[in-house]
Protein backbone atom coordinates (compact mmCIF):
# COMPACT_ATOMS: atom_id res chain seq x y z
CA UNK A 1 0.00 0.00 0.00
CA UNK A 2 2.59 2.37 1.09
CA UNK A 3 4.89 1.44 -1.77
CA UNK A 4 2.11 1.83 -4.31
CA UNK A 5 1.29 5.19 -2.84
CA UNK A 6 4.93 6.10 -2.92
CA UNK A 7 5.00 5.13 -6.53
CA UNK A 8 2.10 7.38 -7.20
CA UNK A 9 3.74 10.14 -5.31
CA UNK A 10 6.84 9.62 -7.36
CA UNK A 11 4.71 9.66 -10.45
CA UNK A 12 3.15 12.91 -9.47
CA UNK A 13 6.53 14.32 -8.70
CA UNK A 14 8.04 13.20 -11.95
CA UNK A 15 5.06 14.61 -13.77
CA UNK A 16 5.70 17.93 -12.18
CA UNK A 17 9.38 17.58 -12.89
CA UNK A 18 8.75 16.91 -16.54
CA UNK A 19 6.62 19.98 -16.90
CA UNK A 20 9.39 21.95 -15.29
CA UNK A 21 11.98 20.60 -17.65
CA UNK A 22 9.76 21.56 -20.53
CA UNK A 23 9.66 25.05 -19.22
CA UNK A 24 13.42 25.03 -19.07
CA UNK A 25 13.66 25.37 -22.81
CA UNK A 26 12.64 28.98 -22.42
CA UNK A 27 15.78 31.04 -21.92
CA UNK A 28 15.77 32.01 -18.31
CA UNK A 29 13.59 29.32 -16.84
CA UNK A 30 15.15 27.42 -14.03
CA UNK A 31 14.73 24.00 -12.53
CA UNK A 32 13.57 23.68 -8.97
CA UNK A 33 15.56 21.34 -6.84
CA UNK A 34 13.23 18.39 -6.32
CA UNK A 35 13.79 17.99 -2.63
CA UNK A 36 13.78 21.54 -1.48
CA UNK A 37 11.22 23.92 -2.92
CA UNK A 38 13.07 26.91 -1.53
CA UNK A 39 16.08 26.45 -3.77
CA UNK A 40 16.15 26.49 -7.53
CA UNK A 41 18.96 25.59 -9.90
CA UNK A 42 19.82 27.89 -12.74
CA UNK A 43 22.37 28.23 -15.51
CA UNK A 44 26.11 28.57 -14.83
CA UNK A 45 25.94 26.42 -11.73
CA UNK A 46 23.82 29.04 -10.04
CA UNK A 47 21.34 28.34 -7.26
CA UNK A 48 18.58 30.75 -6.50
CA UNK A 49 16.41 31.49 -3.53
CA UNK A 50 13.32 33.59 -3.82
CA UNK A 51 13.32 37.24 -2.90
CA UNK A 52 9.78 36.82 -1.56
CA UNK A 53 8.36 38.84 -4.44
CA UNK A 54 7.55 36.57 -7.40
CA UNK A 55 7.82 39.42 -9.87
CA UNK A 56 11.27 40.38 -8.65
CA UNK A 57 12.42 36.77 -8.98
CA UNK A 58 11.27 36.77 -12.55
CA UNK A 59 12.99 40.06 -13.31
CA UNK A 60 16.28 38.90 -11.84
CA UNK A 61 16.16 35.72 -13.88
CA UNK A 62 15.26 33.34 -11.08
CA UNK A 63 15.70 35.08 -7.77
CA UNK A 64 18.60 36.00 -5.54
CA UNK A 65 21.75 34.03 -6.29
CA UNK A 66 23.06 31.97 -3.41
CA UNK A 67 26.47 33.26 -2.43
CA UNK A 68 25.75 36.73 -3.68
CA UNK A 69 25.40 40.05 -1.96
CA UNK A 70 22.26 42.04 -2.69
CA UNK A 71 22.32 45.70 -1.82
CA UNK A 72 19.31 47.97 -1.75
CA UNK A 73 19.68 51.72 -1.80
CA UNK A 74 17.05 53.23 0.42
CA UNK A 75 14.85 56.18 -0.24
CA UNK A 76 15.73 58.95 2.15
CA UNK A 77 12.12 59.67 3.06
CA UNK A 78 10.19 56.45 2.72
CA UNK A 79 10.64 52.98 4.22
CA UNK A 80 10.10 51.09 0.95
CA UNK A 81 13.23 49.04 1.48
CA UNK A 82 11.49 47.46 4.46
CA UNK A 83 8.94 45.94 2.09
CA UNK A 84 11.74 44.11 0.32
CA UNK A 85 13.38 43.08 3.58
CA UNK A 86 10.13 41.81 5.08
CA UNK A 87 9.23 39.68 2.10
CA UNK A 88 12.78 38.38 1.87
CA UNK A 89 12.74 37.26 5.49
CA UNK A 90 9.20 35.89 5.41
CA UNK A 91 10.08 33.78 2.41
CA UNK A 92 12.99 32.40 4.38
CA UNK A 93 10.70 31.55 7.27
CA UNK A 94 8.24 29.80 4.97
CA UNK A 95 11.03 27.68 3.52
CA UNK A 96 12.45 27.06 6.96
CA UNK A 97 15.77 28.58 6.03
CA UNK A 98 17.88 30.01 8.83
CA UNK A 99 17.62 33.79 8.89
CA UNK A 100 19.86 36.33 10.57
CA UNK A 101 18.50 39.84 10.95
CA UNK A 102 20.64 42.76 12.01
CA UNK A 103 19.02 46.11 12.46
CA UNK A 104 19.78 49.51 13.92
CA UNK A 105 16.47 49.32 15.80
CA UNK A 106 16.81 49.07 19.53
CA UNK A 107 14.47 46.09 19.54
CA UNK A 108 14.66 44.19 16.26
CA UNK A 109 12.23 41.64 17.69
CA UNK A 110 9.46 44.17 17.22
CA UNK A 111 10.20 44.32 13.52
CA UNK A 112 9.66 40.58 13.23
CA UNK A 113 6.09 41.17 14.32
CA UNK A 114 5.51 42.97 11.02
CA UNK A 115 6.61 40.18 8.70
CA UNK A 116 3.86 39.38 6.22
CA UNK A 117 2.30 35.97 6.14
CA UNK A 118 2.02 33.88 2.98
CA UNK A 119 -1.26 33.85 1.14
CA UNK A 120 -3.20 30.90 2.42
CA UNK A 121 -5.39 29.13 -0.06
CA UNK A 122 -5.10 28.98 -3.79
CA UNK A 123 -8.63 30.07 -4.60
CA UNK A 124 -8.83 33.78 -4.62
CA UNK A 125 -5.23 34.82 -4.90
CA UNK A 126 -3.13 34.88 -7.99
CA UNK A 127 -5.87 35.75 -10.33
CA UNK A 128 -3.28 37.33 -12.46
CA UNK A 129 -1.71 33.91 -12.73
CA UNK A 130 -4.65 32.79 -14.82
CA UNK A 131 -3.36 34.87 -17.65
CA UNK A 132 0.06 33.35 -17.44
CA UNK A 133 0.88 30.94 -20.22
CA UNK A 134 -0.22 27.36 -20.07
CA UNK A 135 3.16 25.99 -19.26
CA UNK A 136 3.09 27.59 -15.91
CA UNK A 137 -0.40 26.35 -15.23
CA UNK A 138 0.74 22.84 -15.94
CA UNK A 139 3.47 23.27 -13.39
CA UNK A 140 0.97 24.53 -10.88
CA UNK A 141 -1.24 21.56 -11.44
CA UNK A 142 1.63 19.13 -11.05
CA UNK A 143 2.64 20.75 -7.87
CA UNK A 144 -0.86 20.72 -6.54
CA UNK A 145 -1.21 17.01 -7.13
CA UNK A 146 2.03 16.32 -5.34
CA UNK A 147 0.83 18.52 -2.58
CA UNK A 148 -2.44 16.67 -2.22
CA UNK A 149 -0.59 13.40 -1.85
CA UNK A 150 1.63 14.89 0.74
CA UNK A 151 -1.43 15.82 2.72
CA UNK A 152 -2.84 12.30 2.65
CA UNK A 153 0.30 10.67 3.84
CA UNK A 154 0.86 13.12 6.63
CA UNK A 155 4.25 14.24 5.43
CA UNK A 156 6.44 14.62 8.47
CA UNK A 157 8.15 17.58 6.96
CA UNK A 158 5.16 19.85 7.05
CA UNK A 159 5.74 20.68 10.65
CA UNK A 160 3.94 23.26 12.65
CA UNK A 161 5.84 26.10 11.05
CA UNK A 162 3.77 25.75 7.95
CA UNK A 163 0.14 26.45 7.71
CA UNK A 164 -1.41 23.41 6.22
CA UNK A 165 -2.84 25.35 3.34
CA UNK A 166 0.32 27.11 2.23
CA UNK A 167 1.74 25.51 -0.83
CA UNK A 168 5.40 24.62 -0.85
CA UNK A 169 6.47 26.77 -3.73
CA UNK A 170 9.65 28.45 -4.71
CA UNK A 171 8.10 31.83 -4.11
CA UNK A 172 4.95 32.78 -2.30
CA UNK A 173 2.75 35.77 -2.46
CA UNK A 174 2.64 37.53 0.85
CA UNK A 175 -0.33 39.24 2.33
CA UNK A 176 0.96 42.47 3.79
CA UNK A 177 -2.12 42.84 5.95
CA UNK A 178 -1.58 39.61 7.81
CA UNK A 179 1.47 39.01 9.89
CA UNK A 180 3.29 35.81 10.57
CA UNK A 181 2.52 34.28 13.90
CA UNK A 182 4.97 34.67 16.68
CA UNK A 183 6.03 31.07 16.95
CA UNK A 184 7.07 31.10 13.30
CA UNK A 185 9.46 33.99 13.56
CA UNK A 186 11.11 33.02 16.80
CA UNK A 187 13.75 31.03 14.95
CA UNK A 188 15.07 34.14 13.30
CA UNK A 189 18.34 35.20 14.84
CA UNK A 190 18.29 38.87 15.62
CA UNK A 191 20.88 41.42 16.47
CA UNK A 192 20.76 45.12 17.14
CA UNK A 193 23.60 47.08 15.60
CA UNK A 194 22.68 50.24 17.44
CA UNK A 195 25.48 51.68 19.55
CA UNK A 196 27.86 48.90 18.78
CA UNK A 197 31.09 50.74 18.22
CA UNK A 198 32.90 47.90 16.53
CA UNK A 199 31.88 45.94 13.52
CA UNK A 200 33.73 42.99 14.96
CA UNK A 201 30.62 41.81 16.74
CA UNK A 202 28.59 41.90 13.56
CA UNK A 203 31.37 40.05 11.76
CA UNK A 204 31.48 37.37 14.41
CA UNK A 205 27.74 37.06 14.33
CA UNK A 206 27.74 36.58 10.57
CA UNK A 207 30.53 34.02 10.57
CA UNK A 208 28.91 32.14 13.45
CA UNK A 209 25.67 32.13 11.52
CA UNK A 210 27.44 30.68 8.50
CA UNK A 211 29.27 28.02 10.47
CA UNK A 212 26.01 27.06 12.16
CA UNK A 213 24.31 26.28 8.86
CA UNK A 214 23.61 22.66 8.06
CA UNK A 215 26.03 21.25 5.54
CA UNK A 216 24.42 20.68 2.22
CA UNK A 217 24.77 17.08 1.19
CA UNK A 218 24.36 16.06 -2.40
CA UNK A 219 21.08 17.10 -3.92
CA UNK A 220 19.56 18.36 -0.72
CA UNK A 221 20.45 22.01 -0.94
CA UNK A 222 19.97 24.15 2.07
CA UNK A 223 20.14 27.88 2.14
CA UNK A 224 20.45 30.67 4.65
CA UNK A 225 19.57 34.34 4.59
CA UNK A 226 21.23 37.33 6.16
CA UNK A 227 19.29 40.58 6.24
CA UNK A 228 20.97 43.76 7.41
CA UNK A 229 18.88 46.86 7.65
CA UNK A 230 20.28 50.38 7.19
CA UNK A 231 23.90 49.45 7.68
CA UNK A 232 25.32 52.95 7.73
CA UNK A 233 22.45 54.69 9.46
CA UNK A 234 23.63 57.32 11.95
CA UNK A 235 22.20 55.53 14.97
CA UNK A 236 24.69 52.72 14.40
CA UNK A 237 27.42 55.17 15.30
CA UNK A 238 29.68 54.28 12.42
CA UNK A 239 30.68 57.84 11.66
CA UNK A 240 34.28 58.13 10.49
CA UNK A 241 34.37 54.40 9.97
CA UNK A 242 33.99 54.37 6.20
CA UNK A 243 36.88 52.01 5.67
CA UNK A 244 35.69 49.66 8.39
CA UNK A 245 32.31 49.51 6.73
CA UNK A 246 33.60 48.67 3.26
CA UNK A 247 35.97 46.18 4.86
CA UNK A 248 33.00 44.59 6.58
CA UNK A 249 31.05 44.39 3.33
CA UNK A 250 34.03 42.89 1.58
CA UNK A 251 34.40 40.41 4.42
CA UNK A 252 30.74 39.46 4.26
CA UNK A 253 30.92 39.12 0.50
CA UNK A 254 33.93 36.86 0.69
CA UNK A 255 32.50 34.55 3.34
CA UNK A 256 29.12 34.10 1.69
CA UNK A 257 30.69 33.51 -1.72
CA UNK A 258 31.63 29.99 -0.76
CA UNK A 259 28.43 29.22 1.13
CA UNK A 260 24.74 28.75 0.48
CA UNK A 261 23.75 32.09 1.86
CA UNK A 262 22.39 35.22 0.30
CA UNK A 263 22.83 38.49 2.14
CA UNK A 264 20.68 41.56 1.67
CA UNK A 265 21.96 44.88 2.93
CA UNK A 266 19.88 48.01 2.73
CA UNK A 267 21.61 51.32 3.21
CA UNK A 268 20.69 54.99 3.16
CA UNK A 269 22.77 56.64 0.47
CA UNK A 270 22.82 60.11 1.93
CA UNK A 271 25.27 59.25 4.67
CA UNK A 272 27.99 58.13 2.31
CA UNK A 273 30.37 60.33 0.43
CA UNK A 274 30.15 59.96 -3.37
CA UNK A 275 33.38 57.97 -3.54
CA UNK A 276 32.24 55.51 -0.88
CA UNK A 277 28.80 55.24 -2.36
CA UNK A 278 30.48 54.04 -5.55
CA UNK A 279 32.62 51.61 -3.58
CA UNK A 280 29.51 50.15 -1.96
CA UNK A 281 27.86 49.84 -5.33
CA UNK A 282 30.86 48.05 -6.78
CA UNK A 283 30.85 45.58 -3.91
CA UNK A 284 27.23 44.63 -4.55
CA UNK A 285 26.50 41.66 -6.76
CA UNK A 286 22.91 42.67 -7.25
CA UNK A 287 22.14 46.34 -6.82
CA UNK A 288 18.63 47.66 -6.44
CA UNK A 289 17.23 50.97 -5.36
CA UNK A 290 13.79 51.94 -4.18
CA UNK A 291 12.24 55.34 -4.47
CA UNK A 292 8.99 56.73 -3.20
CA UNK A 293 6.86 58.74 -5.55
CA UNK A 294 5.21 61.97 -4.48
CA UNK A 295 1.52 61.69 -3.76
CA UNK A 296 0.23 64.53 -5.81
CA UNK A 297 2.31 64.81 -8.89
CA UNK A 298 -0.19 65.76 -11.54
CA UNK A 299 2.23 65.55 -14.43
CA UNK A 300 3.41 62.09 -13.51
CA UNK A 301 -0.16 60.97 -12.95
CA UNK A 302 -0.99 62.00 -16.48
CA UNK A 303 2.06 60.29 -17.88
CA UNK A 304 1.82 56.88 -16.30
CA UNK A 305 -1.02 54.44 -15.99
CA UNK A 306 -2.04 53.29 -12.59
CA UNK A 307 -0.15 56.10 -10.94
CA UNK A 308 -2.62 56.17 -8.06
CA UNK A 309 -1.88 52.58 -7.14
CA UNK A 310 1.86 52.96 -7.20
CA UNK A 311 3.74 52.81 -3.94
CA UNK A 312 7.05 53.64 -5.44
CA UNK A 313 9.63 52.69 -7.98
CA UNK A 314 12.19 49.94 -7.95
CA UNK A 315 15.27 50.31 -10.05
CA UNK A 316 17.53 47.41 -10.97
CA UNK A 317 21.07 48.69 -11.40
CA UNK A 318 23.02 45.48 -11.52
CA UNK A 319 22.17 41.79 -11.60
CA UNK A 320 24.52 39.27 -10.03
CA UNK A 321 26.71 37.50 -12.60
CA UNK A 322 28.49 34.73 -10.83
CA UNK A 323 30.43 32.36 -13.05
CA UNK A 324 29.71 34.39 -16.15
CA UNK A 325 31.09 37.49 -17.78
CA UNK A 326 28.02 38.39 -19.78
CA UNK A 327 26.03 41.22 -18.27
CA UNK A 328 22.29 40.78 -17.91
CA UNK A 329 20.40 43.13 -20.14
CA UNK A 330 16.92 43.74 -18.83
CA UNK A 331 14.10 44.89 -21.01
CA UNK A 332 13.39 47.57 -18.48
CA UNK A 333 15.25 48.56 -15.38
CA UNK A 334 12.63 50.63 -13.60
CA UNK A 335 9.50 49.02 -12.24
CA UNK A 336 6.60 50.35 -10.31
CA UNK A 337 5.98 48.85 -6.92
CA UNK A 338 2.29 48.26 -6.39
CA UNK A 339 -0.01 46.62 -3.96
CA UNK A 340 -2.50 44.31 -5.58
CA UNK A 341 -5.80 44.25 -3.73
CA UNK A 342 -3.98 46.14 -1.02
CA UNK A 343 -2.30 42.91 -0.08
CA UNK A 344 0.30 41.58 -2.46
CA UNK A 345 3.40 43.31 -3.68
CA UNK A 346 3.71 43.28 -7.43
CA UNK A 347 6.20 44.87 -9.76
CA UNK A 348 5.03 46.25 -13.04
CA UNK A 349 6.77 47.84 -15.93
CA UNK A 350 6.04 51.47 -16.32
CA UNK A 351 3.38 52.06 -18.90
CA UNK A 352 2.71 55.30 -20.59
CA UNK A 353 -0.84 56.27 -20.03
CA UNK A 354 -3.16 55.60 -22.93
CA UNK A 355 -6.16 57.80 -23.41
CA UNK A 356 -8.46 55.66 -21.32
CA UNK A 357 -7.45 54.90 -17.80
CA UNK A 358 -6.99 51.18 -17.90
CA UNK A 359 -4.79 49.61 -15.33
CA UNK A 360 -1.35 48.53 -16.39
CA UNK A 361 -0.56 44.93 -17.00
CA UNK A 362 1.51 43.07 -14.53
CA UNK A 363 5.04 42.24 -15.41
CA UNK A 364 4.20 38.58 -15.39
CA UNK A 365 1.65 39.00 -18.11
CA UNK A 366 3.68 41.27 -20.26
CA UNK A 367 5.98 38.59 -21.55
CA UNK A 368 8.87 36.44 -20.56
CA UNK A 369 11.64 37.61 -18.39
CA UNK A 370 14.56 39.02 -20.21
CA UNK A 371 17.83 37.26 -19.83
CA UNK A 372 21.15 37.59 -21.52
CA UNK A 373 20.18 35.07 -24.15
CA UNK A 374 16.91 36.81 -24.82
CA UNK A 375 18.75 39.57 -26.56
CA UNK A 376 20.32 37.20 -29.04
CA UNK A 377 17.03 36.69 -30.79
CA UNK A 378 17.28 40.35 -31.71
CA UNK A 379 20.76 39.80 -33.06
CA UNK A 380 20.84 40.49 -36.73
Amino acid at each position, binding site marked *: MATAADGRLQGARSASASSFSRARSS*PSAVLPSPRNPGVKLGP*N*GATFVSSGIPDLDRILGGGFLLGSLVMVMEDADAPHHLLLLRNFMSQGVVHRQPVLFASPLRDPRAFLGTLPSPVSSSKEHRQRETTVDHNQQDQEKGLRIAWQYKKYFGDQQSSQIHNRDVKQEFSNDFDLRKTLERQHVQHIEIMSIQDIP*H*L*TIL*RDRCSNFLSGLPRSDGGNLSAGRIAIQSLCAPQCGYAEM*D*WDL*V*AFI*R*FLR*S*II*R*SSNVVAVITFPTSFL*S*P*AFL*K*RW*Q*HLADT*LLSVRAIPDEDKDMAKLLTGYQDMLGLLHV*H*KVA*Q*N*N*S*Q*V*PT*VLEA*STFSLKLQKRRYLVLERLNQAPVEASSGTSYSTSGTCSGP*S*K*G*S*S*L*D*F
Partner: protein
Amino acid sequence: MNPSPSPPRDPDLLEEALGLGRGGSPPWRLAFVEDCVETSGAFVLHHFLKRALSTEGDGTVIFLGLAQPFSHYDRVLRKMGCNLSVQRNKNKLHFIDLLNLEFLGADEKGENDIEIGFMDLYNRILRYIEAIRSKDYNGGWTTIIIDDLSHLEIAAHGSVKHVLDFLQYCGSLTSEMDCSLVILNHEDIHSSDEALQMLSHLDYISDVLIKAETLSTGIAADVHGQMTVIIKDAPGGLIKKLHSFQFKVKENGVEFFYPGSRF
Protein backbone atom coordinates in the same frame (compact mmCIF):
# COMPACT_ATOMS: atom_id res chain seq x y z
CA MET B 1 18.64 30.00 -30.50
CA ASN B 2 20.32 32.43 -32.82
CA PRO B 3 18.57 32.20 -36.16
CA SER B 4 20.65 34.75 -38.00
CA PRO B 5 23.89 33.50 -39.54
CA SER B 6 26.91 34.48 -37.55
CA PRO B 7 28.45 37.70 -38.82
CA PRO B 8 31.82 37.57 -40.55
CA ARG B 9 34.53 37.42 -37.98
CA ASP B 10 35.59 40.92 -37.03
CA PRO B 11 39.23 41.68 -36.58
CA ASP B 12 40.00 41.83 -32.90
CA LEU B 13 40.02 45.57 -32.46
CA LEU B 14 41.37 45.39 -28.94
CA GLU B 15 44.41 43.36 -29.99
CA GLU B 16 44.98 45.73 -32.87
CA ALA B 17 44.68 48.77 -30.67
CA LEU B 18 47.11 47.33 -28.15
CA GLY B 19 49.57 46.39 -30.87
CA LEU B 20 49.53 42.74 -29.94
CA GLY B 21 50.78 40.37 -32.59
CA ARG B 22 50.68 36.61 -32.54
CA GLY B 23 52.31 35.56 -29.30
CA GLY B 24 55.37 37.41 -28.16
CA SER B 25 55.61 40.29 -25.83
CA PRO B 26 53.27 43.24 -25.70
CA PRO B 27 54.87 46.59 -26.46
CA TRP B 28 53.79 48.02 -23.14
CA ARG B 29 54.35 47.29 -19.46
CA LEU B 30 51.57 48.63 -17.34
CA ALA B 31 47.96 48.66 -18.43
CA PHE B 32 45.03 49.93 -16.45
CA VAL B 33 41.53 48.74 -17.17
CA GLU B 34 39.02 51.26 -15.91
CA ASP B 35 35.34 50.50 -15.54
CA CYS B 36 32.30 51.80 -13.72
CA VAL B 37 29.33 50.43 -11.80
CA GLU B 38 27.19 50.15 -14.92
CA THR B 39 29.75 48.32 -17.02
CA SER B 40 32.11 45.81 -15.53
CA GLY B 41 35.55 45.67 -17.10
CA ALA B 42 36.27 42.20 -15.77
CA PHE B 43 35.87 40.72 -19.24
CA VAL B 44 39.02 42.53 -20.36
CA LEU B 45 40.96 40.70 -17.67
CA HIS B 46 39.48 37.40 -18.83
CA HIS B 47 40.54 38.32 -22.35
CA PHE B 48 44.11 38.99 -21.24
CA LEU B 49 44.14 35.86 -19.12
CA LYS B 50 43.06 33.67 -21.99
CA ARG B 51 45.40 35.34 -24.41
CA ALA B 52 48.41 35.04 -22.13
CA LEU B 53 47.79 31.37 -21.47
CA SER B 54 46.94 30.34 -25.00
CA THR B 55 49.87 31.76 -26.90
CA GLU B 56 52.40 29.30 -28.21
CA GLY B 57 55.17 31.12 -26.43
CA ASP B 58 55.23 29.95 -22.85
CA GLY B 59 53.22 32.73 -21.34
CA THR B 60 52.64 32.56 -17.64
CA VAL B 61 50.17 34.48 -15.54
CA ILE B 62 50.23 35.50 -11.92
CA PHE B 63 46.67 36.30 -10.99
CA LEU B 64 45.78 38.20 -7.84
CA GLY B 65 42.12 37.31 -7.33
CA LEU B 66 40.67 39.70 -4.80
CA ALA B 67 37.17 40.06 -6.19
CA GLN B 68 36.10 36.52 -7.00
CA PRO B 69 36.96 32.98 -5.96
CA PHE B 70 38.92 30.73 -8.30
CA SER B 71 35.82 28.77 -9.22
CA HIS B 72 34.33 31.86 -10.82
CA TYR B 73 37.30 32.49 -13.09
CA ASP B 74 37.53 28.79 -13.80
CA ARG B 75 33.96 28.63 -15.04
CA VAL B 76 34.19 31.84 -17.03
CA LEU B 77 37.43 30.86 -18.75
CA ARG B 78 36.26 27.34 -19.41
CA LYS B 79 33.46 28.75 -21.51
CA MET B 80 36.08 30.71 -23.41
CA GLY B 81 37.98 27.53 -24.13
CA CYS B 82 40.71 27.75 -21.53
CA ASN B 83 40.95 25.35 -18.62
CA LEU B 84 42.45 27.20 -15.68
CA SER B 85 42.76 24.14 -13.46
CA VAL B 86 44.93 22.43 -16.05
CA GLN B 87 46.99 25.58 -16.56
CA ARG B 88 47.40 25.84 -12.81
CA ASN B 89 48.67 22.28 -12.59
CA LYS B 90 51.09 23.00 -15.41
CA ASN B 91 52.35 25.94 -13.37
CA LYS B 92 51.45 28.31 -16.16
CA LEU B 93 48.93 30.04 -13.95
CA HIS B 94 49.72 31.06 -10.42
CA PHE B 95 46.47 32.00 -8.82
CA ILE B 96 46.83 33.88 -5.56
CA ASP B 97 43.50 33.65 -3.78
CA LEU B 98 43.09 36.93 -1.94
CA LEU B 99 39.34 36.90 -1.55
CA ASN B 100 39.73 37.02 2.22
CA LEU B 101 42.76 39.27 2.23
CA GLU B 102 42.87 41.67 5.12
CA PHE B 103 46.06 43.21 6.29
CA LEU B 104 44.53 44.42 9.52
CA GLY B 105 42.69 42.38 12.05
CA ALA B 106 39.17 43.50 12.70
CA ASP B 107 40.09 46.00 15.40
CA GLU B 108 43.78 46.78 15.57
CA LYS B 109 45.07 49.54 13.38
CA GLY B 110 48.73 49.35 12.69
CA GLU B 111 50.57 50.97 9.84
CA ASN B 112 53.11 48.22 10.16
CA ASP B 113 50.64 45.46 9.52
CA ILE B 114 49.67 46.96 6.19
CA GLU B 115 53.28 47.40 5.21
CA ILE B 116 54.20 43.89 6.22
CA GLY B 117 51.16 42.54 4.42
CA PHE B 118 52.06 44.27 1.19
CA MET B 119 55.67 43.14 1.49
CA ASP B 120 54.53 39.55 1.91
CA LEU B 121 52.34 39.85 -1.13
CA TYR B 122 55.14 41.37 -3.17
CA ASN B 123 57.54 38.67 -2.08
CA ARG B 124 55.07 36.03 -3.12
CA ILE B 125 54.84 37.52 -6.58
CA LEU B 126 58.60 37.84 -6.74
CA ARG B 127 59.07 34.21 -5.72
CA TYR B 128 56.70 33.07 -8.43
CA ILE B 129 58.50 35.10 -11.06
CA GLU B 130 61.87 33.82 -9.96
CA ALA B 131 60.55 30.27 -10.02
CA ILE B 132 59.23 30.80 -13.53
CA ARG B 133 62.53 32.16 -14.71
CA SER B 134 64.72 29.62 -13.00
CA LYS B 135 63.50 26.38 -14.52
CA ASP B 136 64.03 25.93 -18.24
CA TYR B 137 63.24 29.54 -18.95
CA ASN B 138 62.76 30.17 -22.63
CA GLY B 139 61.85 33.79 -22.78
CA GLY B 140 58.19 33.36 -22.04
CA TRP B 141 56.31 36.43 -21.10
CA THR B 142 54.77 36.82 -17.67
CA THR B 143 51.61 38.80 -17.06
CA ILE B 144 50.58 39.92 -13.61
CA ILE B 145 46.86 40.58 -13.34
CA ILE B 146 45.22 42.27 -10.36
CA ASP B 147 41.43 41.98 -9.96
CA ASP B 148 40.83 44.54 -8.63
CA LEU B 149 42.58 47.55 -7.19
CA SER B 150 39.66 48.83 -5.10
CA HIS B 151 39.71 45.61 -3.07
CA LEU B 152 43.41 46.14 -2.45
CA GLU B 153 42.61 49.59 -1.12
CA ILE B 154 39.97 48.16 1.19
CA ALA B 155 42.39 45.54 2.45
CA ALA B 156 44.87 48.34 3.11
CA HIS B 157 42.19 50.26 4.96
CA GLY B 158 42.34 53.14 2.56
CA SER B 159 46.04 53.78 2.85
CA VAL B 160 46.76 55.31 -0.55
CA LYS B 161 50.43 55.54 0.24
CA HIS B 162 50.84 51.81 0.74
CA VAL B 163 48.83 50.90 -2.32
CA LEU B 164 50.84 53.21 -4.51
CA ASP B 165 54.08 51.91 -3.06
CA PHE B 166 52.98 48.39 -3.84
CA LEU B 167 52.12 49.32 -7.40
CA GLN B 168 55.47 51.07 -7.70
CA TYR B 169 57.23 47.88 -6.67
CA CYS B 170 55.18 45.77 -9.06
CA GLY B 171 55.87 48.33 -11.76
CA SER B 172 59.58 47.97 -11.21
CA LEU B 173 59.21 44.22 -11.65
CA THR B 174 57.91 44.78 -15.14
CA SER B 175 61.06 46.49 -16.29
CA GLU B 176 63.44 44.15 -14.51
CA MET B 177 61.80 40.85 -15.16
CA ASP B 178 60.17 40.97 -18.58
CA CYS B 179 56.61 41.02 -17.49
CA SER B 180 53.58 43.21 -17.85
CA LEU B 181 51.03 44.31 -15.34
CA VAL B 182 47.29 44.54 -15.96
CA ILE B 183 45.18 46.12 -13.25
CA LEU B 184 41.42 46.51 -13.05
CA ASN B 185 40.36 49.73 -11.44
CA HIS B 186 37.02 51.40 -10.91
CA GLU B 187 37.25 54.83 -12.36
CA ASP B 188 34.08 56.23 -10.79
CA ILE B 189 35.34 55.60 -7.26
CA HIS B 190 38.25 57.89 -7.81
CA SER B 191 36.62 60.58 -9.84
CA SER B 192 35.41 62.60 -6.89
CA ASP B 193 37.66 65.31 -5.56
CA GLU B 194 39.07 63.61 -2.51
CA ALA B 195 40.24 60.58 -4.42
CA LEU B 196 41.54 62.30 -7.51
CA GLN B 197 45.11 61.95 -6.35
CA MET B 198 45.01 58.21 -6.77
CA LEU B 199 43.60 58.35 -10.27
CA SER B 200 46.06 60.93 -11.52
CA HIS B 201 48.92 58.92 -10.08
CA LEU B 202 47.72 55.75 -11.77
CA ASP B 203 47.24 57.68 -14.96
CA TYR B 204 50.81 58.82 -14.74
CA ILE B 205 52.52 55.49 -14.16
CA SER B 206 50.56 53.54 -16.79
CA ASP B 207 51.37 53.41 -20.45
CA VAL B 208 48.06 51.94 -21.59
CA LEU B 209 44.58 52.88 -20.41
CA ILE B 210 41.59 50.78 -21.38
CA LYS B 211 38.29 52.33 -20.42
CA ALA B 212 35.01 50.47 -20.51
CA GLU B 213 31.94 52.65 -20.27
CA THR B 214 28.27 52.33 -20.98
CA LEU B 215 26.77 54.12 -23.88
CA SER B 216 25.07 57.30 -22.83
CA THR B 217 21.81 55.64 -23.78
CA GLY B 218 22.47 52.80 -21.37
CA ILE B 219 23.14 49.14 -21.87
CA ALA B 220 21.52 47.49 -24.87
CA ALA B 221 21.17 43.91 -25.98
CA ASP B 222 23.43 44.43 -29.00
CA VAL B 223 25.93 46.89 -27.62
CA HIS B 224 27.08 46.41 -24.07
CA GLY B 225 29.26 49.45 -23.98
CA GLN B 226 32.09 51.33 -25.53
CA MET B 227 35.77 51.02 -25.05
CA THR B 228 38.48 53.60 -25.31
CA VAL B 229 42.10 52.50 -25.56
CA ILE B 230 44.69 55.16 -24.89
CA ILE B 231 48.29 54.35 -25.73
CA LYS B 232 50.95 56.67 -24.43
CA ASP B 233 54.43 56.97 -25.86
CA ALA B 234 55.90 56.53 -22.39
CA PRO B 235 54.50 56.33 -18.89
CA GLY B 236 53.43 59.82 -18.03
CA GLY B 237 54.01 60.82 -21.63
CA LEU B 238 51.78 62.15 -24.34
CA ILE B 239 48.95 60.25 -25.90
CA LYS B 240 50.29 58.45 -28.93
CA LYS B 241 47.17 56.73 -30.15
CA LEU B 242 43.55 56.69 -29.19
CA HIS B 243 41.16 54.00 -30.28
CA SER B 244 37.48 53.90 -29.64
CA PHE B 245 35.04 51.13 -30.42
CA GLN B 246 32.07 49.28 -29.03
CA PHE B 247 31.81 45.82 -27.61
CA LYS B 248 29.43 43.05 -26.86
CA VAL B 249 30.39 40.50 -24.22
CA LYS B 250 29.58 36.88 -24.92
CA GLU B 251 30.19 33.74 -22.96
CA ASN B 252 32.97 32.58 -25.27
CA GLY B 253 34.62 35.89 -25.90
CA VAL B 254 34.05 39.51 -26.69
CA GLU B 255 33.03 41.08 -29.96
CA PHE B 256 34.54 44.42 -30.79
CA PHE B 257 33.25 46.59 -33.56
CA TYR B 258 33.21 50.17 -34.69
CA PRO B 259 30.09 52.18 -33.88
CA GLY B 260 27.45 51.64 -36.49
CA SER B 261 29.36 48.95 -38.36
CA ARG B 262 27.11 46.14 -37.24
CA PHE B 263 23.85 47.14 -38.79
